[in-house]
């Protein structure tokens, strides 16, 4: 049931909010084909959506002439997703969101996308543009792992 490692699917989306849902649909279909359980597919969908929203908003700054690339590749033990934009990426990762500070107005209520991505997938890595080839976030979900087990071991 697992596609040969190396098999990949690519999607190209316009930089418009809402189109992250197309990436969710594609990612869900690939994960289903690979035999991922429904709860892991939900995790993947949310992580891919947040990565696309960031690529659309922060990477491509809502410039509809630019597109967001989503590359889904089967690996030996799971699925790797790269979400590529035309921006320069980030200097450093934002701090972990703190709900108490948010509720008390000491922190922006936003700023949860990257936290959610990291919490929902097995690996998340942000790679920033070095030679004008675009920045990307690389996500991995593994097939054999139980999501709860995996979260605890982090």
């Amino acid at each position, binding site marked *: 049931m697992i596609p040969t490692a190396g098999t990949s699917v690519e999607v190209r989306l316009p930089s418009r909010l809402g189109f992250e849902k197309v990436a969710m649909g594609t990612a869900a279909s690939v994960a289903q084909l690979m035999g991922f359980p429904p709860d892991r597919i939900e995790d993947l969908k949310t992580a891919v959506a947040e990565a696309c929203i960031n690529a659309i908003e922060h990477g491509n700054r809502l410039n509809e002439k630019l597109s967001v690339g989503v590359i889904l590749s089967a690996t030996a033990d799971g699925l790797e997703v790269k979400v590529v934009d035309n921006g320069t990426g980030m200097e450093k990762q934002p701090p972990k*969101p703190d709900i108490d500070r948010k509720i008390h107005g000491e922190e*922006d209520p936003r700023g949860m996308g990257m936290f959610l991505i990291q919490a929902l997938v097995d690996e998340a890595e942000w790679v920033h543009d070095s030679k004008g080839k675009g920045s990307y976030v690389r996500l991995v979900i593994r097939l054999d792992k139980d999501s709860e087990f995996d979260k605890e071991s982090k």
Partner: protein
Amino acid sequence: MQAETKTTVDQTSGASGAPVSVLRFSGDISSTSKDSLLGAWQSVHDGPVLLDFTKVDYINSSGIALIIQMLMEADKTGRKVAAFGLTPHFQKVFTMVGIAKYAGLYKDEPTAAASL
């Protein structure tokens, strides 16, 4: 491009029989939902509030930020909030981001209403 959020406001009663406002959302909860969500919040009177997610298809981090804004208002004015109708996935997400600390998450309306 994004599905609109519809919010309707209902009235029910809590454990003690006291009135409880119910905000029923449908569609997407995302950056375009601001007016619908915060507008509905402003329209309800004092007392505890139930959030009904039964008919919500999609929630992203911008939508979660709007829910946190509602909880900020609730916290300021000392109002209790409970939510129901979330899928197991979004119950997990709401717990991960800490919303569960400020709003009880329940499986259905009677259980959620009884908590208020």
